[in-house]
C-alpha cells in the first residue's frame, strides 16, 4: 500500500511545514502533524518539507503485460455519419504516437448506415477502421454504445484510446473507463508516448495555474479525451490506405434502457469554435454598451466576438461565447483579447491560437505570458483608433 508517513522528530517548524501543503491536508492534532483526507498525494511535503519529515512509501503494483495491448484507437465522433472534425485531429495525433512505438492506428466507428463515412476515414492515415453498423445504434444511447466499445476493446486490446471531448465523448469515455477500471484523463492538451507504450498526458489541473503530467502506468487501455482544435488536423491524402472491418455484435448487447424520442436540430449559430478571427472582451470592458467597440472590430476583421467567464456571470454574453475550461476551446488564426487578464483556465481555451494579441492596461497581467504581441495600454484609447485606421484603409483612394 502506498502511504505518506510523517516523522514528527524531523519537523523543524510545525507551522512552516504545514504551510508547504497547498491543499491544507497537513493538520495539527495534539501537537502532532497528521495527514487528512484532503491529501492529493502530490508529494510536495516530501520534496519541500524539512528533510525526512514526510516520507512517501510506495509499493510497486504488480505489473501488467503491456505487450498484450497494442495500437492507438480513436473513437469516431459523429451525428448521423457526419464525422466531427475532432476525429481527424485525433487520428493525426494517434498516427504520430503510433509511429513512435511501431503500433497501428485503429478507429472505432459505431452508428447506423455509416459505411460511406467509414470509407472516408481511410484518407487520413488509419490502418484499420472497425465498424459497428446497426439500426439500434442510430442515436446515442450510453448503455448500448458502452457495450459496443467494450466489445471492441476486448477484441482488439488497444494500448491507448483517444476520444474527442464532445457531448458524447465526455460521457461515453468515462463509462467505458469505469467498465475496464482504467484511467481516463480529460481534456489533454499535450499527448506523448514512452517506449514502453505508456501514454504521457498533460492537462491543466487542480483548477489552478498549473499543468499536470499524468500517466496510467498499471492499467490498459489508457484513455484520454481531447478537445476540438487542440491537436492538428492531418492533410487529406488523395489515395485511401488501410482497411475497413465490419464487426458483429450480439443484438442483446445493443438493447438500451434509454428510449430516444427524437433529435431536434438546434438553430445554426456562429460558433466561436469555428471562427478564424476572434475579438475577446474581458473585465477591462467597463460597460455593456462598450461591447459595440469589440463587435465593430470583430466585424471589420470578419470574425466573431467572444468573452471571459466574468462576462458570462455579468449576463453580458450567452454562455456559448465563453472561452476557457468551463467554456469553449478555440483555435482561431487571430485572437485579440481586450482587457482580459488571462487566467490559466482562459488561456487553456485559446493558447493554441496562431496569433495572440493582447491589450491590457496592467503590464503584469498574465495574458502577456502567452500573447505573441502584448500591448500595454487602454483599450478605450487603442480600439477606436485601430477601427478608424482599418476603415480608412478600405476607403477607395
Amino acid at each position, binding site marked *: 500500500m*502506498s502511504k*505518506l508517513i510523517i516523522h514528527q522528530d524531523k519537523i523543524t517548524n510545525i507551522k512552516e511545514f504545514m504551510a508547504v501543503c*497547498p491543499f491544507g*491536508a497537513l493538520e495539527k492534532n495534539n501537537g502532532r502533524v497528521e495527514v*487528512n*483526507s*484532503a*491529501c*492529493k498525494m502530490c508529494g510536495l511535503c516530501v520534496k*519541500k518539507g524539512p528533510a525526512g519529515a514526510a516520507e512517501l512509501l510506495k509499493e510497486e503494483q504488480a505489473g501488467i503485460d503491456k505487450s498484450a495491448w497494442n495500437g492507438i484507437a480513436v473513437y469516431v465522433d459523429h451525428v448521423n455519419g457526419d464525422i466531427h472534425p475532432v476525429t481527424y485531429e485525433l487520428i493525426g495525433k494517434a498516427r504520430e504516437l503510433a509511429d513512435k512505438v511501431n503500433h497501428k492506428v485503429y478507429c472505432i466507428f459505431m452508428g447506423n448506415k455509416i459505411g460511406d463515412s467509414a470509407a472516408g476515414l481511410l484518407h487520413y492515415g488509419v490502418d484499420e477502421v472497425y465498424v459497428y453498423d446497426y439500426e439500434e445504434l442510430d*442515436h*446515442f444511447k*450510453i448503455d448500448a454504445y458502452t457495450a459496443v466499445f467494450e466489445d471492441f476493446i476486448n477484441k482488439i486490446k488497444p494500448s491507448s484510446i483517444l476520444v474527442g471531448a*464532445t*457531448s458524447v465523448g465526455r*460521457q461515453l469515455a*468515462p*463509462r467505458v473507463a*469505469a467498465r475496464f*477500471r482504467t*484511467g*481516463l*484523463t*480529460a481534456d489533454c492538451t499535450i499527448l506523448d508516448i514512452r517506449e514502453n507504450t505508456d501514454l504521457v498526458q498533460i492537462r491543466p*489541473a*487542480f*483548477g489552478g*495555474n498549473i499543468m499536470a*503530467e499524468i500517466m*496510467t502506468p498499471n*492499467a490498459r487501455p489508457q484513455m484520454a479525451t481531447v478537445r476540438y482544435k487542440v491537436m492538428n488536423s492531418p492533410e487529406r491524402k488523395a489515395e485511401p490506405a488501410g482497411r475497413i472491418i465490419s464487426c458483429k455484435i450480439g443484438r442483446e448487447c445493443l438493447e*438500451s*434502457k*434509454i*428510449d*430516444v*424520442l*427524437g*433529435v*431536434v436540430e438546434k438553430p445554426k449559430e456562429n460558433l466561436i469554435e469555428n471562427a478564424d*478571427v476572434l475579438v475577446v472582451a474581458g473585465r477591462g470592458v467597463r460597460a455593456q454598451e462598450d461591447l459595440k467597440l469589440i463587435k465593430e472590430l470583430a466585424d471589420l*476583421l470578419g470574425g466573431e466576438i467572444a468573452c471571459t467567464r466574468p462576462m458570462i456571470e455579468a449576463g453580458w454574453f450567452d454562455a456559448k461565447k465563453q472561452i476557457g*475550461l468551463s467554456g469553449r476551446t478555440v483555435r482561431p488564426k*487571430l485572437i485579440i483579447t481586450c482587457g482580459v487578464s488571462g*487566467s*490559466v483556465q482562459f*488561456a487553456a481555451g485559446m*493558447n493554441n491560437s496562431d496569433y495572440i494579441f493582447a491589450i491590457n492596461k496592467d*503590464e503584469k497581467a498574465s495574458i*502577456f505570458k502567452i500573447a*505573441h*504581441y*502584448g*500591448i*500595454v*495600454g487602454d483599450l478605450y484609447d*487603442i480600439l477606436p*483608433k485601430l477601427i478608424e*485606421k482599418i476603415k480608412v*484603409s478600405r476607403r477607395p483612394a
Partner: protein
Amino acid sequence: MNILVCIKQVPGTNKVEVDPVTGVLKRDGVDSKMNPYDLYALETALKLKEAHGGSVTVISMGPPQAKQIIMEAFAMGADEGILLSDRKFGGSDVLATSYTLSQGVAQLGKFELILCGKQTTDGDTAQVGPEMAEYLNIPSISNVKKLIEIGDSHITVEMDMANTVEIAKVPYPCLLTVDKDICQPRLPSYVKKMETKNREIKIISFNDLGDQDEKKYGLNGSPTQVQRIFPPEANNHRELWNDAAEDIPEKLFNKIKELKFV
C-alpha cells in the same frame, strides 16, 4: 421521489500561483465553496421534491471541512447529508472517487434519481457522474438542459448535444448530470440555516463500505498517477509594446495588415 445529489467542495478562488523558485503551489488559505455547477443539480432536486414529494439527500466526498457545503445544502432545503471521509480516500483520481461514491450510495436507501452538476470548477473533467452510474449499473444522461416529463417509472429529458438536442426517456433509477441552463438556483435561506444548524451529517468512512479491498480506494485505487506538476509554459515568441512614445494603434494596424488580416 427520493433524490440523491452529489456535491463537491472546491477552492473558492481560481487564483493559484506557482512559486517560480520553489515550485510550490500558493493557495489562498482555506477559502472554499460548493462547486457552482452542483447548485443547479441541487435546485433541480428541490424543485422536483416540491412538485412531486419525496426527499433530497446530498452526498459529498472530502475532508471533514466539506461538512460546510452540506450545511449549505441544508440551508437551501436538502433533508439529509452524507459525507464520505477517510484518509484512505486521499489521492483518489476520478475512478477511485467514482467507486468510493458508488460504494457510499450502496449504504443508503433507494433513490429514483441521482443528480450531479455537469462538472466541477477545480477538475473540470465531467467524468465522475457517468463513472458512478457505471458502477451502480444504472443508465446515465449527461448535459441535461431540461426535464420534459416526470412520470411514475420514467423521466424524459433533453440532452444537449452541441448542434442537436436529443430527447430521451429513461427509467428510474438513473443518473443525470445537469447543465446550468436548467434552472436558477435559490439562495440559502437564513431561517432554514437556523433550523438545520444542529442537523447531523452522517459520516461514512472506509470501514462502513461494503467492499473492503483497500486497493480500490485512494491513491492505490487510482489508475492515473500525477507524475509531476509544473507551471504552464509561456509562449516563446513574445513582444511587449509599452513605449508611450510609440503610436500603438498604428503599430497594431500595421502588424495585423502584415499578417494579412486586414
